[in-house]
Structure formats: structure tokens, C-alpha cells
């Protein structure tokens, strides 16, 4: 049985990863989470390369939570690669980042981000943000039908 409700968390900071996972758990988001620690790992997972060469590409994550500042390929480069590939073009991607710099927001939306959320420092607020994200993107939102022929 394939798991089709994976959340791909692209996050290089292990403490932020831990906090995000904690927030998801505390918000009763029980979807399996795959963590990619840099941009290359994220694309490897999505396109079945490297460590994920055996992955079933018919199944795509239900949601990608994308940090912007990442080693190797940064978040915006990952986003660009996703949006230029037919298999991932319609994937819901939410930027989950520290930055509210205008340039990051503009470029993210230009490249087709679905949502842009700042990680609050206050963990209570952070948890609330993750809870709302989970509720919206995993429950309320109806994703595009999966790409065929992949």
C-alpha cells in the first residue's frame, strides 16, 4: 500500500525540524513526514533520484513545507525546479521561513508558491500557525488531480 498523504518538510536546521514535528504532532497532524535537509535532497525525493531512486513517483506528497534558506540549492531554486517539471508543477508548496524580506516574498510568489508563512519565534504562535496550515492544506484544501503517465 502506498502512502499518499506524506508531508515533505524541507528544513536544514535540526532544531527547527524538531519544533515543526512537535508542532505538527501537538496539532494532531498525523500524516507521515519526510524530512529533506537541503534542496538537493528535496529534489531527489520528489524526482526519485539518489537515496530515493526506488521511490514510487506515482505518489507525490500532499504538502511541501519549504524553508527558503537551505544548503546547496536554496528554497527558491527548489521551488523553481518543482514548477518547471510537469510531475510537480501543481504540488502545494508552502514557504515556512524566518524571512519576511520583501524580496523573498516577491520571488516566492513569482515562482508560484501557494502560501507564505513566517515561523514565529513564540512557540505558542508557531504551533498555532502549523495547526492552521495542517487544517487548511491537509483537510480543507482540495489538491489538483495527480499528474498522469509519470
Amino acid at each position, binding site marked *: 500500500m502506498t502512502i499518499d498523504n506524506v508531508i515533505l518538510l524541507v528544513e536544514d*536546521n535540526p*532544531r527547527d525540524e524538531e*519544533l515543526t514535528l*512537535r508542532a505538527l504532532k501537538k496539532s494532531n497532524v498525523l500524516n507521515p513526514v519526510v524530512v529533506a535537509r537541503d534542496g538537493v535532497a528535496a529534489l531527489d525525493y520528489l524526482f526519485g533520484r539518489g537515496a530515493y531512486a526506488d521511490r514510487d513517483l506515482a505518489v507525490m506528497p500532499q504538502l511541501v513545507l519549504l524553508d527558503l*534558506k537551505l544548503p546547496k540549492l536554496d528554497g527558491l531554486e527548489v521551488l523553481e525546479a518543482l514548477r518547471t517539471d510537469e510531475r510537480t508543477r501543481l504540488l502545494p508548496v508552502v514557504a515556512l521561513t*524566518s524571512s519576511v524580506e520583501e524580496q523573498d516574498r516577491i520571488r516566492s510568489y513569482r515562482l508560484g508558491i501557494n502560501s507564505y508563512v513566517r515561523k514565529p*519565534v*513564540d512557540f505558542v504562535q508557531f504551533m498555532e500557525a502549523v495547526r492552521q496550515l495542517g487544517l487548511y492544506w491537509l483537510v480543507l484544501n482540495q489538491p489538483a488531480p495527480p499528474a498522469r503517465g509519470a
Partner: protein
Amino acid sequence: MRAPAIAVTLPLMTGDVDPLGGAVAAAPVLTATDLQMLFEAAPNPMMVLAPDLTILAATDAYLAATLTTRAQMIGRPLFEVFPDNPDDPDADGVRNLRASLDRVLTSRAPDTMAMQRYDVRGPDGAFVVKHWLPRNIPVLTSGGAVRTILHVVSDVTEQLRAVELDAALAGRTREVAHERAVIERFFALSLDLICVAGVDGYFKRVSPAFDALGYERHEWLERPFVEFVHPDDRAAVRAEVARLATGQATVDFETRYRCKDGSYRWLSWTCAPDGETLYAIARDVTGARETQEALARAKEAAEAANRELESFSYSVAHDLRAPLRSIDGFSQALLEDYADRLDADGQKYLGFVRGSAQQMAQLIDDLLALSRVTRSELHRVEVDLSALARAAVLRLQQAEPARQVEVVIEDGLRDRGDARLLAVVFDNLLGNAWKFTSKQAAPRIEFARVVHEGHPAYRVRDNGAGFDMAFAHKLFGVFQRLHAAAEFDGTGVGLATVRRVVARHGGQAWAEGAVGAGASFYFTLGAEDRSP
């Protein structure tokens, strides 16, 4: 008095004897007709007048000189035939000739007139300019009365024209000499470098201004001029000369010339070709160039600093917050997961840790906002300040719906400014007013345009906690706070941001207040510079 008809019969040569002793044929006798024909054939322009100035006879030469036919003049009064030129307002021929003839009639002696302009009518009726030397000679009867007057003239029109031409030429020569002197002086005195060069690559002549580069005047002419040019500029100079050789002018062509002492000067050339010859003027723009280069370097340095600040801010935005999130998040995790192993103090201290982390996050945000104010470009447009103020108040009210504050905003306040930066001003000023009136029973906040010490200014006034004017100068400094954090929270960056936004608009910000009696914050937006 009728003019007498002239009939001359003179036996001129009646000699029968040839002085050489040869046989002689009988000489013919000249008839009056002969004499008339002889007179008419005489090469000088002459005319015979009766004492009443009727024209009696004229030589063919006279007819030719006056462009008249015999039929037009014989038997007619002199001044009918030869009136003044009506187109010449200065014409005095009739008057002067009449005076001369009167003198002859009176004195019965010849009268020579000064050179006289006396225009005559051509066959087409148009007057032709003529200059004459006339002489009037009386022919007397045996009794001594004036029988006729012989009017003899020389037509000097052509000679005069030649003389005038000479004079004009002489004048022109003087003018040319003068112009040349002016040009020479100009050449000698010009502070710009003036020269004549050839497309062969040599200077032909250089002005004294070239001396500034340290060479003797002759040195300039002895070498191809490109040798004086900085090696890096030579290709460009050769290309420019090639262009000039095709007849195109050069304007503001800047190139470095080597001085005798080895230094270089920037010369800006303007050059016009005329065949093989180039006429050129150069200005020493070294000073301007150096200023320009210094400016460019300063600008580059400023831009580099700005880029550095940009990337610094970017790093701050991303990286400084992450550890704070860990501090706060894991403190919260401790509080949640290990509450049973922490006593009240332990929990309180973790609360302090979280509070500090959050305060620092706020500080970072405020500092970034302050730096953004400096970094972002100013886009001045017509802005509705009243609407900006109302929007800021709305945000405050939404954040604290329970608070009841009387807000009075003057309508229709418009000015030119950057709407986004001015929104930051209102967020801070109205946010402060909102914050510092929180302990008032009847809080009131106003925004209006007022006249402050004779000048228009915008004012945000509240009836809140106020401040001690002794510290007013510290209000707008970064991290300066006049209230203890326990009393009113804040980072002390807001008013510094306000001042910076206002300063970027060319305006000023200042404050008035008293402890417990509210505060008034004033600002202007460079109203002096605005066009009406």
C-alpha cells in the same frame, strides 16, 4: 531769345604752294556740312548750347556718353533733356550745371566744374549712374557777347568705379588684417588649447595654452601628435582621426595627453575637419575627470556598503531568529513536557527565557524595519495622510479590540511622500500614542495639520503618560527609552525609524510633552522643497 543757327564756312587751308615745292592740287573747301560732320565726329564728348541753354549740337561721343540720340536733344532745352534723376534724393547735377553756365554767361570766361554725378536716362527710360568732369567754355561774338557755350565733358564713371573698388579693397584688406589680429589674439589668449593639425597626424600650429603641458612650442610640431597621447588612448585617437578624415566632426572626445614631466592631463577635444586640415580646440578636464572618478568611486563604495547591508539584513532576518525560535520553542517544550519536574521558580525562569527570546525577536524585527527605511528607495507620490492614519488606528484597534480610545483624525490631509514609509511613521506614532494612553481613563489621540512656531507641521497628540522634556533630545535615538519596560513595553527603535523616514523626505521630527500630561509629536515632509 531764339538761338542763332550756326552756319560755319571757313576756308581752312587755302595755300596754293606746297612748302616742299611739289605741284599741288587745289585743296577742297570745307563746307558748313563738313564742319558739322567734323564736329560731330570729334572724339571728345561735347555739346553746343545757346545762351538760353537750348541744345544746338553734340558730338557722337557725347551722344554715346549720355545714351541719347541727336533727335532727342537738338533744339530742346538742356534741362528738359537732362533732368535730375528723381530716384536720387541727393541729385544736384541740374543745380550745379546751371550755376556753372550762369557763371560762364556772366563772366564770359570758361568754367570748370568739380567732378559731378549726373545720371542720364537710358533708352529704356531708366536712369544710369554717371560721373562727369564738365567744362563750360563760352564762344564769344566779335563784340564780346556770348554767342554759344561749348560744354565739354569727360565721362569718369568707370574710373571712379575702379577707384571706389580700390578703396573698398583697401578697406577690406584692413578689415581682414584686423580680423586676423583678433583671431591671433584669441589664439594667443585662449585658455583652451587651440591647434591646427593635419590628417597626416602632425600638429601644424599650437596655441600658447599648450605650454601648460610643459613642452616647447616647436616640440609639438616635430612628432606625430599621437605620441603625446596615453598609450591606452592611442587606438581611439587614430580611429577618431580616421573619422575626421572622412569629414565628420569630433565633439567632446576625451583623451589623456602626456605632459613633459610624465604626468597625464585629460583633454576634451572638439575638432572640425576641412579637407586635410583639422581645426581643434581642447579643454583640460582633468579636474572634472578626477571629481567624476572620485564620485564614481564614492558611489561604488556606497553601493557596495548598501549591498553589504542588504546581505547583512538578509542574514539577520533569516539566521538570527532561528536560535531564538529554539530557545523559545524548547523552553515551551520543557514547560509542557517536564512541568512536573520543575518547581514554580523553574517555570518562572523558563518564562523569563521565553520572554527574552521574544523581546529579542521583536528587536530584530524593529531594527530590520529601521534598516529597510534606509535601504528602500523613496517613491514620492500624492499621499492621503488622513487615510494612512485611519488605517494605522484600525490595525491597533483590531489588535486590541477591547480598548476604547477616542481618535480624532483631520480629514483630507494630503502631501507628497512615500506611502509605505509614511505608513511606518503612523504605525509608530499612533502606536506610541495608543500604548502610552493605555492607563488613561479617557484616552484621546489626535492627528492634524497645525501651525507650530509659525510653520505648518503634522501633529500626533495624545493625553497619555507624556514624558519629561529634559529628555526630549533622547527620544529619537535608537534604543532610547524613557519608560521602564515594566511600565510600557517597547524596543526604543520606533521613533528612530520615524525620524529616519521623515529625514529621507527632507523633513524634521520633534516632540513636546510633560510627565502625565500627554505628548505631541510633530513632523514635516520637506514642505520647503515642494512646488506649489
